[in-house]
């Protein structure tokens, strides 16, 4: 039970030694010509070692901004970037840009960006690209780094003779695997995956998911998977965070979430997934997410919510509805079980 925090500060609120990452009140606002966009607006969550968390949300809900703020890969027009991010108990927000780059990014947290297969450098051999983080961050010699890159290739299922190829000589699936190998090669504690399979074919996607599952089983890796694809996210998820308009509205374990989620938005999302093996008509959520320029006061989902009542005009607090189950909705002021709202799919009247 020894605590091996290599940190200047102890972990807050009695976080166990299993806690890898703890995020508190993270905010990331951008300046734009039309005003301040509140892309990430007060996000809290924690992640345990060897856990995979999925952050689900529609486009524009701030999920990619959340990933970028965890990695501090920020654009220039940042208006406000505050909050606390504890990694292994160390508050990495206190680190300077240089310290963060040297000690955290890619050594502790690595990243598979959106459309990673197009993010590879076209004029470098893919083997050299995978070896590069080792040489840069750990000062390993080229020979040794290439040997480790070879190892990483084997892990993700890329033939080792591809080490000497260029990105354009590889198919999309293979390029995606190379990007994962690059994120893996430094053996980080946490890998952030931003839509790792959304541009890939069904079979390739299943293959990549198999690779990620195996890596998680064999190593002590944790994942944060950012996606809008609910069905695919269930392939990896231990925990699910639902993001809506810059906030996390539900945090739940996968077993509960994929059978019966709590938040009305989460229920609507689950009901909108077309299913292959069930003859249930999917429904949709009418309306659109609010603008992040001027988010509405009160619950941000209220305008689209089938269960709206007068309390929803005020900002809902976060209710704990079970062990590590949190939901930001007034319904759960009194309830602790999910209140099903979408059980009977609404039939849209066909236009005349």
């Amino acid at each position, binding site marked *: 039970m020894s605590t091996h925090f290599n940190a200047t500060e102890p972990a807050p609120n009695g976080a166990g030694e299993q806690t890898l990452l703890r995020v508190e009140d993270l905010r990331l606002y951008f300046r734009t010509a039309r005003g301040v966009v509140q892309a990430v607006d007060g996000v809290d969550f924690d992640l345990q070692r060897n856990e*995979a968390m999925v952050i689900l949300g*529609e*486009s524009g809900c701030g999920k990619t901004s959340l990933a970028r703020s965890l990695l501090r890969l920020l654009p220039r027009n940042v208006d406000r970037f505050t909050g606390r991010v504890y990694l292994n108990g160390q508050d990495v927000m206190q680190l300077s840009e240089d310290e963060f780059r040297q000690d955290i990014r890619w050594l502790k947290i690595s990243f598979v960006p959106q459309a990673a297969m197009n993010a590879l450098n076209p004029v470098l051999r893919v083997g050299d690209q995978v070896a590069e983080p080792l040489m840069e961050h750990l000062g390993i010699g080229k020979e040794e780094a290439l040997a480790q890159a070879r190892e990483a290739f084997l892990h993700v299922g890329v033939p080792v003779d591809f080490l000497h190829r260029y990105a354009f000589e590889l*198919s*999309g*699936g293979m390029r995606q695997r190379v990007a994962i190998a690059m994120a893996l090669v430094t053996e980080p504690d946490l890998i952030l995956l931003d839509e790792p399979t959304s541009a890939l*074919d*069904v*079979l*390739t*996607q*299943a*293959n990549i*998911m*198999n690779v990620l*599952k*195996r890596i998680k089983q064999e190593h002590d890796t944790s994942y944060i998977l950012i996606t*809008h*694809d*609910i*069905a*695919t*996210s*269930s*392939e*990896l*998820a*231990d925990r699910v965070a639902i993001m809506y308009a810059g906030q996390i509205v539900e945090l739940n374990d*996968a*077993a509960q*979430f*994929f*059978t019966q989620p709590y938040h009305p938005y989460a229920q*609507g*999302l*689950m009901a*909108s*997934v*077309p*299913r*292959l*093996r*069930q*003859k249930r*008509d*999917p*429904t*949709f*959520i*009418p309306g*659109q997410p609010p603008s992040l320029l001027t988010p509405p006061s009160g619950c941000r989902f209220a305008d689209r919510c089938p269960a709206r009542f007068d309390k929803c005009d005020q900002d809902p607090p976060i209710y704990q509805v079970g062990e590590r189950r949190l939901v930001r909705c007034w319904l759960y002021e009194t309830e602790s079980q999910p209140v099903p709202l979408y059980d009977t799919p609404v039939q*849209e009247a*066909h*236009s*005349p």
Partner: protein
Amino acid sequence: MTTTAPQTDIATQSPAAPADGGQPLLSVQDVHTWFELRKWGFGHAGYVRAVDGVSFDLEAGHTIAIVGESGCGKSSLMKTILGLHRPIKGDVVFQGRSLSGLDRGGRRWYHSQVGYVQQDPFGALPPFMPVKRILEEPLIVNGVRERAERERRVREVMEEVRLLPVGDFLNKFPHQLSGGQQQRVVIARAMILRPKLIVADEPVSMLDASVRVEILRLMEALQEAHRIAVIYITHDLSTVRYFSQRIFVMYAGNLVEQAEVDELLSNPQHPYTQALLAAIPDPEPENAHIYRDVPPGEPPSLVNPPRGCRFHPRCPHFMPGVCDVEMPPDFETRPGHKVKCWLYQEE
């Protein structure tokens, strides 16, 4: 009532349009669409056999889905059907008229009969035109001269795709619309000439989950209301059920299996279809604890496709001496269920 207007102005341009007497609306006959590869700009270096011997019939008012992975030739097939690629062999026949025999007026007539819904709505809409102008364009091209008539039909189609209230959207530019609204404009544009066939290329793959179902429902409702035939092209088998009667599975330029939707989903017979279905997850928590069975390798090159069945290098039921020798023909295993696989050859 509303459909009479376009027919009169089109009939003047194509006096030879025959009546459809019992024939299918669209007949794709052994179409081969190959693209020539050139060396140094002029030397011949082979062909990309994007579509290699595809045949099917589509009846008026019916819906089919063509499912396949990227690079399997489904977009080339679609563009051949739209008349944008010329097949090197075979023909596409629409209402008894061969596409290869159409003159300029005939092509205009054909394009007024066939609507196209693109994958990426934002890319498909001209950025400097307001919605009203975008929807008027096909009417102008097809000779609807009166401004009031055009305006009436624009409003009518916008009501149908639920861009309501119409007045709010008429003068908006595409970038002022959400993804779902943009896709509605694309659908309205495809619908405005009252086509008999709509080709929809991944119409919802760029949209968010909650909007996706809304657009699929809309297309379903329009299809039923106007009895339009639809070719729905997608890689996402889970959305197919809501929207088509038959599924065609395409692999490496061939249709490898075709059946009614429920039959195909419950009783897939081609090993490729089986693999495809097994790889698609439904959102279940158990998924995180299982590995999926995925055939090794990747789809073959279409320049030098494997001999015989094109799936044989990846197939778990590969029979040496059979599968790698000759391309299997269609075997009809059940009424209406055809599969190109030697496993189903009758003794």
